[in-house]
């Protein structure tokens, strides 16, 4: 990703001083429509912060389908193969025990473990995959510097446009957000 190069007219600034422009909306539908306009205007690096999931927001934001299912599938296949090879090796090859005449290794007896490990590693894939895709754990994000940002977990619907967006220009996006009905539109430092 390219370094943010803020275009500044008139004055000259030495270092990038702005990481994102942040504002909030009073209702989910206002946020939804704002996201739609940003998407239609060609913005890519913007994010919505809401106190609860807003249905359909991913479409309004123009997000691509999540890659998470593929990670989960990878976890599932790994779990399945691990369980299969483990039981085959332990019970059938390395240390076969005769328990009421049952074969050391059999598909039938292996199914519960196959199932459990498939599910377990799928769950791991889901949980840690989501962390990875979200960039967690993340102790600081510039957006948090917005003075009212704590309300994003209460009753306000935040929208942030990041400086790394190719179309970013702090003055334009500030005006744009204000025009879309955002309140307290502010620039946050990196």
């Amino acid at each position, binding site marked *: 990703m390219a370094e943010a190069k803020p275009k500044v007219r008139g004055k000259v600034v030495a270092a990038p001083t702005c990481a994102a422009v942040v504002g909030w909306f009073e209702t*989910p*539908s206002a946020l939804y429509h704002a996201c739609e306009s940003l998407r239609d205007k060609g913005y890519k690096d913007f994010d919505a912060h809401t106190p609860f999931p807003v*249905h*359909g927001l991913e479409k*309004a934001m123009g997000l691509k389908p999540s890659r998470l299912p593929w990670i989960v599938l990878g976890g599932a296949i790994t779990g399945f193969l691990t369980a299969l090879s483990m039981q085959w090796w332990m019970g059938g090859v390395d240390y076969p025990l005769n328990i009421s005449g049952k074969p050391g290794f059999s598909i*039938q*007896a292996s*199914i519960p473990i196959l199932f459990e490990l498939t599910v377990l590693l799928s769950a791991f894939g889901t949980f840690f995959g989501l962390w990875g895709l979200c960039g967690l754990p993340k102790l600081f994000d510039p957006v948090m510097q917005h003075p009212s940002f704590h309300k994003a977990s209460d009753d306000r619907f935040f929208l942030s446009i990041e400086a790394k967006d190719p179309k970013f220009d702090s003055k334009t996006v500030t005006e744009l957000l204000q025009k879309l009905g955002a309140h307290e539109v502010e620039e946050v430092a990196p």
Partner: protein
Amino acid sequence: MSSKQQDLKDTERLPEATAKKVQTLALGVAAVGLALSAVGYMGDKQRFAFSFLTAFEWVTTLGLGALFFVMIQHVTRAGWSVAPRRHAEWLTSILWVSPILFFVGVFPNMHTLYEHWLGEHAAHDAIVKAKQAYLNTGFFTGRAVLFFAIWAVLAWFFQSKSREQDSSGDTKLTEKMQAMAAPGLALFALSQTFAGFDWVMSMDPHWYSTIFGVYMFAGGVVAALSVLAIINIRLQSAGLLQKVSTVEHQHDIGKLLFGFTVFWTYIAFSQYFLIWYGNIPEETIFFKHRWVESWKEWSLLLLVGHFIVPVVVLMSRHTKRNKAILTVMAVWMLLMHFVDMYWLVMPNLDHHGVHFTLGDVGALFLCAGLGFALVARRAAASPLFPLKDPRLAEAHKVENL
């Protein structure tokens, strides 16, 4: 999410020509079935009794699966399923045809089908004698009448209340249906389980499995959901339902279809696994009968066709939302449900491999054709979705993230 008032108007009725076509098709299938059945019956009366039981179970479990779907929607107060619930209500009409099929096609052949506890040697069989308090003609008949009565009344109740709401729009009716759904489900679970024991499991009275009723239930729900998926897709494609039943509802039905396919497998494996581990001859005999000669391939077909194929195909959201793929899978699962019923019934007759005949197809066509002819009649006579259901707006808004 949009705040504008949503227009819930959709086509209310099946066009007359379409309704006629569907009914004619069902009756045509039944007529072909009758002809083939006659050939089968002339050829081998004993064999045809088993073929007919297979077909009867196929169509009856499907109707029961639909009844379950209707009641589950009420008991969970589901909002998404308002339109599919109406389609399931149509399917419960099958439960009015089932008793006729049973008392005409199954009951008179009792001595053929259940000869192990009705025949002469039953008197000398200690195990069967111990079960005679339960397995005797009088009690068996009484139970059958009771089961059919429960199902017919439940099907009538949910259909008629739902139809009443179409004109009155009274929300009290929804409450009434919800209140009935919980005891209805309890009655359904018991009657359905014991019907499975009586009509299928008792063919081999030495063998028993407490999970058997659940197994048949799981297969029936898969079949019912398959038909619901096909109805949803057909009504969408024909442009009849565009708002209350869309690709989102199709996706939800697909998810349930996937889920119940896995549930079926879970139950099938639970039954198999305990018997395999216990390794006691009187229990393993059930699977031994289904593992001799070509029955082995039939069993493997069930494993691959009723589990592996649908699980792999239906796992992705894209396949569940694709009309062609979901239709193919729904038809496939209906076929697999027949393979399943055949697998349960026919090895009691054929101990040396599969012996598939025209009579098997004939009986299936006959039972399915008659059942669906009534379903088609009900579909023609009622609106395509509950017109004034209080949850219609909710159903319209359904979206899968």
